[in-house]
């Protein structure tokens, strides 16, 4: 013990000391029990990821399936031009933000924008657009890859 340290017994009245130490032991037991319980859970010792969400960064949240799909599409494309992901109308803004941040992390330094069909602007800057079938029409884009119900389009040269 440090030369300046003083045991609790010298500083606290006897009854209060026993009460405090009993509480401390009780707290340690409770925290250890809860720690063990949570360690056995899906966010515990082994992080449980549902099939199809392995590509997400950190603990998967709603939207992780789409993140994993686009990640797989991104793999092997070294083109530095940005991509656009068009998520369905009415997508929860939280989920859209999650997907945008995740893809920004995964694809960085390549830019990946996320938009709904209503707020898609000009497509001129994008090398690829990932969307549900039928969202992108016209002669300018052609479907080049399909995965988990999503289609990647590339500009017709």
């Amino acid at each position, binding site marked *: *013990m*440090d030369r*300046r*340290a*003083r*045991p*609790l017994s010298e*500083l*606290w009245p006897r009854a*209060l000391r026993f*009460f*405090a*130490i009993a*509480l*401390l*032991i*009780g*707290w*340690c037991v*409770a*925290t*250890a*029990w*809860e*720690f063990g319980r*949570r*360690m056995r859970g899906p*966010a*515990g*010792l*082994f*992080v449980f990821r549902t099939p199809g969400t392995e590509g997400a*960064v*950190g*603990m998967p*949240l709603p939207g992780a399936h789409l993140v994993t799909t686009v990640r797989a599409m991104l793999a092997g494309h070294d083109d530095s031009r940005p991509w656009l992901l068009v998520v369905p109308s009415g997508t929860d803004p939280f989920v859209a933000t*999650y997907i945008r*941040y*995740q893809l*920004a*992390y995964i694809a*960085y*330094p390549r*830019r990946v*924008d996320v938009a709904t069909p209503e707020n898609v602007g000009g497509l001129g800057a994008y090398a690829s657009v990932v969307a549900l079938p039928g969202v992108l029409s016209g002669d300018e884009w052609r479907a080049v890859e399909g995965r988990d119900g999503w289609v990647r389009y590339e500009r017709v040269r």
Partner: protein
Amino acid sequence: MMIAVKLALAYVAIWLLGALALAHIGARGRGILGVVADFAAGVVLLAFVGSIAVIGGIRLSPLAIYGLVLVLGAAATIRRRGVRVSLELPEDRIARLLLVAIVLPIGLLALSALDDRLWWDGWAIWVLKARILFNEGTLPSEYFERGGWLAFSHTDYPLAVPLLNWWLFHHVGAPDPAVAALAGTIWHAVLVFTVVGVLRDRVGDRVAALTGLGIACFWPIAFFASGGTADVVIALALVGALWEMDEGLASGDASAFWRSGVFLALGAMAKTEGLAVAVAVGGAAALLAWRRTLRPRRLLGCALPFAIVAPWLVFTKALGIRRPYFTLDLTAAELLDRAVLFAKSVGTMVFGSASWLPLAGIIGVGILRDRSHAGWLALGGYFTAIAMTYLLTPDDPLWLIDTSLRRVLAACVPAALYVSLGGAAAPFSPAPAPTAVNSDRALDRDELSGQGRTDDLEGSGKEIGVVGHAGAT
């Protein structure tokens, strides 16, 4: 194995950076707490230098940080300032056993961190920035633009955590999220051994080790830390700053206030809450020092967090990216509703969980004992600041409570335990009158007489000594 060696090198370099800086200003501490203060100072320096580089648009390089270590090392050699470390293991067998037991939960968390277990805040606030820093060497303009494609969550937050992650990423050679998760667990381990250190000095090895074991297993700290959130850094800053503040108030030692300032600066450079910690602890220290007639210049260290974080605050303010944390656009009824919601949420959390309820009892006993006015004043001030953010938030208060209250309050737990068990267990004794036998010491006694920090005289021939410890009578 090589990655472990590289990570160890990264941490040793940051520790050395801080140890050399503190050695130069004569503010190095002793034992495990001294090592932690060194590390905190290293992270603060890294964050300060890195922030200035980002503000100036200069690319960061790990070589520049190693250069800084070399310069400080060379200057220390010339000035004969050593950075020796002496650690003292407890002699008590039960305490040793408890310390070994602490390794188990920390080890399990470290193991699980290898699987990338980052929570939303971990990757969306901190690791994304670290990744940009890793690739670009700075934060580009797209990061600071409103609606910019790199404008992620909390763009106005200071950079201590992303810069430490950037440093670690460079050492392992990739922006691996698992490294950030592991860094969180290392922060947690540092916190645990800090709690052991501060209590060991106050109430002995067994109680200290038992409390450390509790903190090691306390899931709202442990899991969020390995999830990469920065609340564990706030917890460390709070308990470290409080302990050093107590030391400073007890002994009048300016170096303790400098170390307290280092911990406060660590918090302020980690999260916005850190500024509230700095105001609360610095305010309590100033008030108590004034009542005890300590010279104001001894408290200069408490101004450190504000000086360190000021450039970043000015920069983000000038860019207009600071997000509002408070609104006064509330009716009295809305405010009351929010107060009830906050109180109910805290009550449900504390009284509805086995891992919180005993804490309420320990803290309650500590408050009843009320021997550490400075500690309770600082903690009370910080809790008030926390409550205000929930009462006056411009966001939905229920959402804010759901997403943050548990970990924000958990960050107060180590400090609250320290003040309850240790700080509160330090009785003040009345000061004997100064004697003419030792007039130069009597000057220091005068400074300390308001708090009674003097040794008892055991005999007429004994010299009067100033005791730098709150527990000594």
